[in-house]
């Protein structure tokens, strides 16, 4: 059970999410999902602004446009579950419950960030909530995350791993090795592929001859499902089923969330290789706007409550940015710390 009070209701419902929704008890859950979508969107947009303002160097990989996949897949995870994020999954830490202060300190590379300024801005993990600090090498976390699932299974726990990665990652050898192993041992892992049609500037047609990346799962002997990755409830439903399956020892599931990144691959990529029409068409399918409509139809959201959520989130973000800006950089004397285990 999550310790954060704001999440408790949603998490309670999570465990019986299907029943809850069928019985019409999913209001808290849906509002919770909405708030999390808003939080991820606003944090991500803030991260972009801060980069443009020159507040931190390095780079940032925006996930704006892909929030439904990220939130839908990770929202129902328990505190003891794990996430193996990649470069575009800074917000997965937020969904899993990392304090915003730490998330922004991470961007700035400050001594108060979980990695004390060692890794890069977007490559964030936070050990207390079991998000793995990612290497940038694509598919690396996915493989290590599979190892975590292997270990958890050996320990006899009913804990699961959610692994996030993109369409491009499915081309690496390490991807195939990991999924093959997970299939053989029915490991408790959910592979969440955010197929945003591009791997940097490389279009999907040059990445794979498949139409649906979910088809890859066939080769490893476990289910693969293609989803509308901009429909948060669709992702949430498929994920909770996959998570339940994994907890029950029935093995992995591959979820292909078809989605789109609105901006460049990173903050230094003007993305000139994409057609404006494509970008505009996907922006019309904004996962937040789509879900907002669902909530309004169900009378779960009004102009006032929407405003209130935005205001509260803005304040929370401003405080976190303030914290990050005030935090010191790590001292040069820390350079050689954490190479070896402390005796």
């Amino acid at each position, binding site marked *: 059970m999550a310790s954060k009070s704001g999440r408790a209701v949603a998490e309670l419902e999570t465990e019986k999410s299907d029943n809850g929704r069928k019985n019409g008890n999913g209001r808290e859950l849906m509002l919770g999902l909405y708030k999390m979508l808003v939080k991820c969107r606003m944090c991500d947009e803030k991260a972009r602004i801060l980069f443009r303002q020159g507040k931190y160097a390095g780079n940032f990989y925006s996930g704006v446009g892909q929030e439904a996949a990220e939130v839908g897949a990770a929202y129902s995870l328990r505190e003891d579950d794990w996430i193996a994020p990649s470069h575009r999954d800074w917000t997965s830490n937020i969904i899993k419950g990392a304090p915003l202060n730490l998330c922004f300190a991470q961007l700035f590379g400050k001594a108060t960030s979980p990695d004390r300024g060692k890794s890069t801005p977007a490559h964030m993990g936070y050990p207390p909530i079991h998000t793995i600090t990612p290497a940038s090498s694509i598919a690396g976390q996915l493989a290590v995350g599979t190892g975590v699932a292997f270990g958890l299974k050996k320990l006899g726990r009913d804990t699961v791993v959610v692994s996030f990665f993109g369409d491009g990652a499915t081309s690496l050898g390490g991807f195939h090795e990991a999924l093959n192993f997970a299939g053989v041992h029915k490991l408790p892992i959910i592979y969440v592929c955010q197929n945003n049609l591009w791997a*940097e500037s490389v279009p999907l047609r040059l990445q794979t001859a498949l139409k649906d990346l979910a088809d890859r799962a066939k080769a490893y002997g476990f289910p693969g499902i293609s989803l509308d990755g901009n429909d948060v409830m669709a992702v949430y439903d498929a994920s909770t089923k996959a998570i339940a399956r994994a907890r029950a020892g029935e093995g992995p599931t591959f979820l292909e969330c078809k989605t789109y990144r609105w901006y460049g691959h990173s903050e230094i990529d003007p993305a000139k290789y994409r057609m404006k029409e494509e970008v505009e068409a996907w922006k019309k399918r904004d996962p937040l706007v789509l879900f907002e409509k669902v909530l309004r139809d169900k009378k779960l959201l009004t102009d006032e409550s929407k405003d209130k959520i935005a205001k509260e989130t803005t304040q929370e973000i401003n405080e976190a940015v303030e914290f990050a800006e005030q935090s010191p950089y790590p001292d040069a004397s820390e350079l050689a710390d954490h190479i070896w285990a402390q005796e």
Partner: protein
Amino acid sequence: MARNITMIEAITEAMAQEMERDDRVFVMGEDIGLSGGVFKATAGLYEKFGEERVLDTPLAEGNIIASAIGASMVGLRPIAEIQFADFITPAMESLVQQASKIRYRSAGGYGCSLTVRICCGGGTGGGLYHSQENASWFVHEPGLKVVMPSTAYDAKGLLLAAIRDPNPVLYFEHKKLYRTAKGDVPDGDYTVPIGKAEIRRQGRDMTIVTYGYMTGLCLEAAEQITKNGVDAEVIDLRTLSPLDKDTVLESVRKTSKCLVVHEDKRTLGIGGEISAIIAEEAFDDLDGPIIRITGPDIPAIPFAPPLEHAWMVNTEKIVAGMEKLAAY
């Protein structure tokens, strides 16, 4: 005619001219096509030569190198790009089991003529995984040639030599030099020999052996230390494998002192090898210890600015090393 152009322009020009001259040459890698590469090294090639010869590959470095090796075995001349030296690891099997050994294991029956362009180096705020050099990994592999230019002139000449070389050549490009190393580059055809170092500054009192981005810093340090009355010679290796021992030994015999400077990590780095060569072959000529100024034995360059600064070799650290050596 020579023009004043940047290193990255020289690299692009070398590829374009060689593709024009030799239709066996093609380029492949991640994001090198329409987008022209992360650093724009292949800008304009896609428009000029089309998708057949400027191929955006799937995200799989192992396969980029393996397929380039295979293509070269039927007579083609691939130039493969590895976007960041940090991400060369999935290609380790292809490079060290295949490229370096195919000729040896087939007693010359097969070989591969392939160029791998690798963007490397730190000091740009890239953090742990966009700053690594990793060149010395491959110096340990006979069968692979390893080069790294420090000037725009060498960048073009070495790249043309690499493409024409009948062996696999790993061509490292320091990202900090792409737009800062500017110089006169002939617009015509020329090569810079692989395996030949260049003396960038003549001097009597000590020899500094270095390469790549560090070359400029060493030249700066050599100027600064003239105020102490020290006259240093600076050797730019240009090729890390095979090493130009002769140029190094000849210089050390003249100056009797040697400082080796590299950005990559210390242990088992090029500095260790050069020190050993000098100790073995020029021991009697030495008037002091061989000193190394290198990146530290710390996994990679961290992101936080004070940590990155502490990690990197800079002019101050080089001057300090020179002062220490001058005292002997």
